[in-house]
């Protein structure tokens, strides 16, 4: 009996053992897929992933706002080192400025690389086009904040430590990507999807910043003449995530965890003197700018005057961004096209007030005539102020200060070198790559 038992158990053991070993091959995740499972059908999901990456960590509201805080539009006690243009490389909030655009780029690169296997395939052109658009926008965010940037197009060895490419190369990539997006993408239907006009408007913006006024004019004109957009009576609607205003050309929505976040958390008045809103109450708008709105100007209602949290005085808080659980971030909108046409013309020596007046009229502000200006330069000065009034809080001012020649003086007034127009790269990157170049006049 014993010997039989032995054989019996030995047999059972042997059979069960070999059967078990196979199970090691069968373990697979159920909320993750391998790269080989990527298909034309799920490519749009990767585009969503790229947008998620841009807004991930619930931090878009911070890095979207930082350059405005650096500019003359805002004063901030909450972010004093941004306000005074002397950011520490180990600043708590700095990493997201660098990290999230690159995370978006990595996801956009997945789409672009996959699509390279199917040249000319129209079924994926929408995804591919938006991937180019998002990659370009991400590199715009990076180059505006940091200047030179390592160019990542996908497929690099993640352990390699490339140097930063010069700004000219980054700008060339942005331009090429936007052109590709403009070709691939269809006409505008909604601001939450990439469109030909979104790519054109961003192209127009970079051309203007690079002084290529004819090209800027051409692209902005193309956006206007597409007939897809019109100025709306309800200015506040533009910034609501759940309303697709015909003024909004392209916007990125974000899933947040509560209505506490989003841009109101940065610019809001907080909870002083009976006010109960988001925000710290320590970041307020330039009072001279707010006072420059005409009384009937609809945009004036987007400010609340109340006491600052840490100071004894009353100041103006920007309240145009609604507190929402899915806050929205504007990438580009119609009125920028209108003001670019005015500005590009003025820079070419032509004082054409038509698009300027179109915007002013819609905002219930007084209009001008070309005879009011002694020179195109005088009109440019007015356009600059109009851009501030129109786009405050939409992260355009810092580039505008550069273009209008205001930046160096502004930085010097804080005792900072003009090189502090750029932010420092976050410290963490130098722990990984000590040879990486830091921006001038910052420590690593």
């Amino acid at each position, binding site marked *: 009996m014993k010997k039989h038992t*032995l054989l019996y*158990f030995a047999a059972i*053991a042997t059979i069960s*053992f070999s059967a*078990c*070993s196979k*199970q*090691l091959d069968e373990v*697979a*995740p159920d*909320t*993750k*897929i*391998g*790269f080989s499972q990527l298909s034309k059908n799920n490519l749009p*999901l990767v585009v*969503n*992933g*790229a*947008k*998620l990456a841009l807004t991930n960590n619930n931090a878009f509201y911070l890095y979207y706002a930082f350059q405005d805080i650096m500019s003359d539009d805002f*004063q901030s*006690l*909450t972010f*004093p*080192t941004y306000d005074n243009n*002397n950011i520490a490389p*180990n600043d*708590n909030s700095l990493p997201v400025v660098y990290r999230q655009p*690159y995370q*978006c780029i*990595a996801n956009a690169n997945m789409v672009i690389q996959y699509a390279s296997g199917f040249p000319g395939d129209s079924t994926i052109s929408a995804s591919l086009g938006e991937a180019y658009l998002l990659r370009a926008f991400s590199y715009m965010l990076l180059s505006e904040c940091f200047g030179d940037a*390592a160019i*990542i197009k996908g497929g690099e060895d*993640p*352990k390699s430590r*490339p140097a930063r490419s010069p700004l000219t190369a980054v700008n060339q990539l942005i331009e090429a990507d936007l052109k590709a997006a403009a070709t691939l993408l269809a006409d505008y239907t909604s601001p939450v999807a990439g469109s030909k006009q979104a790519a054109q408007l961003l192209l127009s913006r970079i051309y203007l910043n690079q002084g290529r006024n004819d090209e800027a004019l051409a692209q902005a004109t193309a956006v206007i003449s597409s007939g897809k957009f019109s100025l709306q009576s309800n200015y506040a609607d533009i910034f609501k995530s759940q309303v697709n205003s015909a003024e909004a050309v392209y916007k990125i*929505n*974000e*899933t*947040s965890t*509560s209505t*506490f976040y989003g841009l109101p958390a940065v610019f809001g008045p907080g*909870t002083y003197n009976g006010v109960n809103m988001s925000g*710290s109450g*320590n970041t307020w708008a330039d009072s001279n700018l707010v006072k420059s709105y005409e009384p009937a100007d609809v945009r004036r209602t987007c400010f609340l005057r109340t006491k600052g949290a*840490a100071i*004894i005085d009353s100041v103006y808080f920007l309240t145009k961004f609604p507190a929402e*659980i899915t806050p929205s971030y504007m990438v580009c909108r119609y009125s920028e096209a209108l003001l670019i046409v005015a500005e590009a013309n003025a820079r070419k020596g032509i004082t054409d007030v038509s698009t300027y007046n179109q915007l002013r009229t819609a905002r219930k502000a007084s209009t001008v005539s070309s005879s009011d200006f002694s020179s195109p330069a005088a009109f440019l000065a007015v356009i600059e102020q109009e851009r501030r009034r129109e786009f405050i809080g939409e992260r355009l001012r810092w580039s505008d200060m550069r273009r209008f020649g205001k930046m160096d003086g*502004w930085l*010097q*007034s*804080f*005792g900072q070198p003009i090189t502090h127009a750029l932010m420092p790269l976050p410290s963490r*990157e130098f*722990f*990984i*790559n000590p040879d990486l170049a830091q921006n001038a006049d910052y*420590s*690593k």
Partner: protein
Amino acid sequence: MSGASVYAQQVLKGTVKDAVSRQPVPGATVKVIGSSKGATTNEKGEFELNVPVNAQLQISSVGFENVIVAASIIQASPVWLKIRAINLTDAVVVGYGTQQRGKVTNAISTVKSDALSPEKNIASDFGKALTGRVAGVFVASKDGSPGGTPNILIRGAQSVNAASTNPLIVIDGLIVEGSTISINNINPQDIESIEVLKDAASVAIYGARGSTGVIIVTTKKGRMNSKPAFSINMYTGVNNVPTSRHMLNTEEYSSAFLDARNNRIGDINTLLSDPGNLTPGKISQLTNEKQTLQSQVNGLQMADRSTDWIDRVKNKNAPVNNIQASMSGGGDRNNYYMSLGRYAEEATIGTGNFERYTGRLDVTQQVNNWLKINGNINITQSVRKNFNNPLVAAFNARPDTPEDPVLNPDGSLGYYVGQQQHPLGVMMDNNNKDRNNVYLGGLSADIKLLQDLSFRSSFNATKFNDLNTVFYPPTGYLGAFNKGVLKNSGVDNFSYNFDNYFTYTKKVSRLGINATLGYTFYNNQLNYFGYELNGFPKIDGITGGGAGSTYGSAFAIGSNNTSNKEVSDAYFLRTGLDWEGKYLLNASIRRDGSSKLNAGNRYSWFPAVSAGWDIARENFLAGSRLVNQLKIRSSYGISGNIRPLGYFDAQNLLNATSYVNNPALMLNTVIGNPNIRWERTKQVDAGIDVSLLGNRLTLAADYYNKTTDGLMSNNDISWIYGASSIPDNIGSIRNYGADLELALSSRAGAAFSWKVETNMNINRNQLLSLKDSLTTYGAYVFGGPMTKAKVGQSLGSVQVYESLGVDPQTGDMLYKDQNKDGKWDNNDMITVPVALPTFTGGTNITLSYKNFTIDALFNYVVGNKVYDFYEQTLRNYSPDFYGVMPNKFDIINKRWKQKGDITDVPRAITGPHGAGQTADWNYRPSTQFIYNASYVRLRNISLSYNIPTAVLSKVKISRARIYASAQNVFTITKYIGFDPEAAANNGIVSSNLPNPRAAVVGIDLSF
């Protein structure tokens, strides 16, 4: 109580007692030499036996020396059993079997149930009971939160990740790893013994999972042929915060606030006094900044009151209670053990309590002469509820904050200043309950196939279910922006290991042979789920999910709902040979595979060999009264570790998740590494076991040297790749040192008896190499120091500026410009090892006089440091995100105030300052925030009194003991914070709760 009457061939009655405690020894085996007759002593140590007059009796009991006495002398007095410090015939539990202590050739330490008794371990888990008890085992409770479990390091660390350095826990053959079972899921009083496997040869049989050491827990069983014994042990007492630190009071806060701004205004005035150097823009900006500063100065309105918020959030005399009842016994073919226990404790800071119920049942039945079945089940319910740690709010709160939280007209929580949260308001957000139910169970069959060959099949499983419910009311700080939040999240975890192995034991002449061959299969499934609800009415008492009006943000869907699985298997073989127990040789080999690795790297071999020579058994020492044991032994082996690797991190993956309520695919932030392979640790150990003076003096000493190669870690990569890390085998690390255990006890049978046991470990940890010299190895605390390891240094370093103190002229910090380039950047930082101690140990002293016993345990930790993160963070004098300058520790009162002040605390300042002209200059991560965290602690002291049996017999109680005990009684340290032990395993202290000082009284009864 002594032996009574002897008649030829008549009944002999006798008593067996412990020579040290003078207490009866129940369950001792009394055997008549030369016959099959025998008996077991009862709870009073008594036995009854029919013997011939001239009989010789052998009396044995676990933990005591065997005694042979003539039946004729038993009448005179009780038989005194002497405790054996090293019990040569005791079974030592090793992986997949047991060995006789005398034949062990490995470094294995044993902790018996006595050290786990409730009065010696006022804690919920057995891990803390190991503190200071075993050489080479370093236990640190990083947080004194109720129900919190400690980090355990055996012979140094291979990884900076706590989860990866803790040893493998095996409970009665059940592998506890990769699952959610925590060491507090088992009642320490249900444990019979804990074996700590330290050297590679003993852990190699657990191969792939053993390189961090193995802790084998053996639970209590009933004894065959013993009368039922019912015991109750309970204590009650209080926990308190043993030390304190203080924040600034209102006057001191105002002074710091105003100094910081006035100092900056002073600096601006100095600049403006020489306007020739300034551009008009700069002058206007400085003037503007000065105005803003002046506006802040004028705007500071402090109420005339002051609260020490750290003291205010303490929960003084927080109750701690424990009760355990157990029943055990056995017939001639079976035995059983069952128990019920309850442990509860409250947080000493903030709110929260931990309550745990445990139930255990263990039954063994000898079915017939070839089959024995054991079944056991352990059911635990742990509830952590109403938890809130308000320390950060207490650090930040302005000292003039009113005692009661400010309420808005609608009843919701408001703010006193800015959006600063009121510490008591924060504590109100404690409507949370985390309940887990844990089932540990096993079923095993031992089959005797042949005389020398047996087969064991053992199935062990764990089931862990956790439901965590958190409710933030719409009136609170955290729920306000969602109109109330209810978060439900849970864990469902099932893991099992199925072991089948043959054991062969044979004695051929003087050669002893034993061999084990088997296969084990391990399967672990870990699933998480959860959701959020929003939109609750502002009505007191409404806290249930059903009252929510919407589902919450989709934000957390991805992280709340995941599933993981690991499958692994192994073949193992161990053989042991011994010649008369004198020359010993053991060898083992195991082949392991895990589904975490790609097929090509999946399997690895883990061999080990060990040998020993017990010189005391040689003829020239045999029979020596001085030397009882003198064994030299050595071992070498390879063991592995796979814990640092994520379940699916060998593959490149896209996460399926959501973006604004639409599906999305996003690249994993951990980049897959298909080439990742096993981490392997090679360890050599040489040791000596000595027992002298009739076992009154014992010593075990070990030297070890272990080298880990293929060090498995998640390596940081540049953010430009859209990810943060990649797992890799990044380098090699070495831990070497020595363990020493020494015990000296008084002569047996003395009225006053004593015992001193001490143990110590010296460990040197050194990162030997990194595959890539630029690899960082550590975790980054933003704003704090980079924690980093450097080749040639110990793990757990921080990268900081080297402070040269405060400049008496300016009051600003001076840092050493290491490369003398006139700039202060990363190149000027130094790496300072902080986390790992170089010397640890403990000393236990037991004194007994008649029925009294005093037991004191000291433990000491030397050579480690802490980096005080909040000390650094709170040196910032600007308003924080909530619009208020946070309060500061009172060390600030020592700050530099005027020229010539000599101090190590820099001046209060906002805005650019110091040689670097940056706003963070005075609070950059530097050596000024590193404190020596060495300490000596009276870990536990207990006094117990055994109520005399004469008193007890009248009330039918066989044993009664009352005791008073205190834990963490005092600590000698230079660290100024709460608790040098309560730091993260990377040496950084933030808002860690200090470990409580407990004081309890209790009673232990047996019927």
